[in-house]
């Protein structure tokens, strides 16, 4: 019926320009022009204009109204001209009347349409258009609790999720330029192809904001690289899960934490990006604990484990740079690791002392007598790093010296040595043995400014196959 008018006009009570032009509109209507007046907020306010109820915002959405007042001229139901705001000359031409609103100023801009207020537009797309979302619809009963419905269907990690409604999914998809239908890869353990749209649904559920979504997609791409061995990592009886480390300016831009309590709770971006990846593995891949996720213990990192590196100290080379990316490039690194082993050293004051000290703790990763069996992630605190920095040691030197401090005679490590059954193969008794592969010790600088502690995350046992299961770094495409 909107199509039969000569023109349409969109107004709000809460718009000074709209209120200003009301007498002009009345004059035009009185002259017999057939105007369909839609009021977005309170139609009763403009009752002299006999307006139509536009509070559903469907007409504003249908005509893509961005501001009020908007005047649209129709010809056979199609738009032929549009004036936004009050523009005296344009209105004169539009209605072929030189005297319209002669007492009004020449020009007044309008206000934003209610249909363009934050969060509203995606709701309108969801409600009033074919929004293109392809995932199966799940219709809840009138009295159902949507949070409980998600639990009931087994879609959660045990914590509540944000129910994935169309409006929320559309908002999430706005966080990327990628086509929702793009396939990112196959998600283990069921090796099911995942689209950008399906990733967005799970990111919604995890609680992500749309601006986190590029990081989620990059983390997912990294996880699905065959050499990351997500399949084995999910199904393993070990403790491990993906640990996500974010580098580059995006970390600050989306409000990630690299400081105090960096490995803990409380930061939405850290918490939900890691959780989104885990929900994807669960919901799309079918990685359900007790079914194909066979971890003996699991670990808290299987809810989420994601943080940013502290890049505020220019003397420190960020992890992503050490792994071949440019400084200032956004990247995620995924490491197959366990929970945190705290390292406390409040007495060492030279780089040599702290190196020996860190090495002694790193040797315990997995088992003190195992070697080249797992990788490790060392999260070096600002205070511990300061000891190195003050002595002029950079990432390369620290890494080399740590490796060197962990070389031990094979005779002490072979199975049965020191009265302990576990150990390396007896054939290596005469070798000097490294604890980790040369590339198997990843160092990240993060944590609060105060505290002579660092954190060690043991790597997964899959790391013993040196080239078959490795950490992966991916660029974050914005």
């Amino acid at each position, binding site marked *: 019926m909107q199509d039969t008018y000569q023109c349409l006009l969109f107004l709000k009570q809460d718009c000074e320009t709209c209120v200003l032009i009301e007498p002009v509109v009345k004059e035009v209507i009185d002259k017999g022009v057939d105007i369909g007046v839609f009021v977005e907020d309170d139609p009763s306010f403009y009752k002299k204009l006999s307006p139509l109820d536009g509070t559903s915002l469907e007409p504003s959405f249908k005509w893509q109204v961005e501001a009020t007042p908007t005047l649209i001229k129709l010809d056979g139901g199609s738009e032929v001209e549009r004036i936004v705001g009050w523009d005296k000359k344009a209105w004169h031409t539009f209605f072929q009347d030189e005297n319209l609103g002669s007492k009004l100023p020449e020009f007044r801009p309008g206000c934003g349409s209610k249909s363009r207020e934050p969060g509203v537009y995606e709701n309108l797309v969801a409600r009033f258009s074919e929004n293109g979302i392809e995932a199966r619809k799940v219709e809840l009963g009138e009295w159902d609790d949507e949070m409980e419905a998600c639990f009931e269907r087994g879609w959660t990690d045990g914590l509540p999720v944000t129910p994935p409604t*169309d409006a929320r999914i559309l908002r999430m998809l706005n966080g990327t330029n990628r086509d929702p239908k793009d396939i990112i890869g196959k998600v283990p353990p069921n090796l099911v192809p995942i689209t950008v749209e399906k990733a967005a649904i799970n990111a919604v559920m995890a609680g992500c904001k749309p601006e986190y979504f590029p990081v989620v997609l990059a983390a997912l791409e990294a996880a699905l690289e065959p050499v990351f061995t997500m399949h084995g990592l999910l199904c393993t009886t070990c403790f491990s899960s993906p640990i996500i480390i974010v580098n580059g300016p995006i970390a600050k831009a989306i409000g990630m934490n690299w400081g105090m309590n960096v490995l803990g709770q409380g930061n939405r971006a850290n918490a939900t990006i890691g959780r989104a990846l885990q929900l994807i593995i669960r919901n799309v891949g079918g990685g359900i604990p007790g079914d194909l996720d066979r971890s003996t213990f699991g670990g808290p990192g299987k809810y989420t484990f994601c943080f940013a590196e502290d890049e505020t100290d220019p003397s420190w080379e960020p992890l992503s740079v050490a792994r071949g990316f440019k400084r200032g490039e956004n990247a995620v690194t995924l490491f197959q690791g366990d929970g945190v082993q705290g390292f406390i050293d409040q007495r060492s004051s030279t780089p040599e002392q702290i190196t020996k000290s860190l090495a002694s703790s790193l040797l315990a990763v997995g088992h003190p007598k195992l070697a080249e069996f797992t990788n490790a992630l060392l999260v070096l605190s600002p205070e511990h790093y300061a000891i190195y920095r003050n002595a002029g040691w950079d990432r390369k030197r620290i890494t080399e010296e740590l490796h060197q401090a962990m070389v031990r005679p094979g005779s002490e490590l072979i199975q049965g040595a020191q009265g302990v059954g576990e150990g390396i193969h007896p054939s290596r008794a005469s070798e000097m043995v490294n604890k980790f592969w040369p590339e198997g010790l990843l160092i990240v600088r993060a944590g609060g400014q105060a505290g002579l502690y660092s954190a060690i995350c043991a790597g997964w046992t899959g790391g013993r196959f040196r080239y078959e299961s490795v950490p992966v770094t991916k660029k974050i495409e914005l």
Partner: protein
Amino acid sequence: MTSLILRDPTAETSTLSRTRKTPPENLEGKTVALMDIGKMRGDEFIDRLEQLFDEKGIATKRYKKPTNTRTAPHQLIQQIVSESDVVVIALSDCGSCTSCSTHDLNDLDNLGIPGVSILTEEFRNAFNGQCEKIGFEGASIFTPHPMQNKTREELHAFADNVFEEVINKITS
């Protein structure tokens, strides 16, 4: 009030419903919870089931909801979970008791106690509809409707007729 539509976050390789927990292979050493939903005359039907289990040497425990018009109190659910291995819920022959007892079946299943709900034929659609709404593939057995006006002997005969199916549905 309109219903909310969510989008499926899964691979969509299976039905939307959660399959029930796999029951034990047999009932040797297991305890069967006989949950009386509190509807009139349901106890007479359950009395006969109890006898039949006893004749087979299968241990049972009786539980009773305070009312068929609400879901079971969580204390009762927890008691069943801690004392039994599988559950037989009987006997629903009305709308509210069907809805509530289906939730009970789902709640117990979620806590690791698979089971079966026995209802009268008239409420087949209600049971299936409730299962669909909560996304649960519940197991059910149907007896003739109505049952309130039957003799004790007739109710016992209903129990006799379904007993084998009950065993089948609480074992795998």
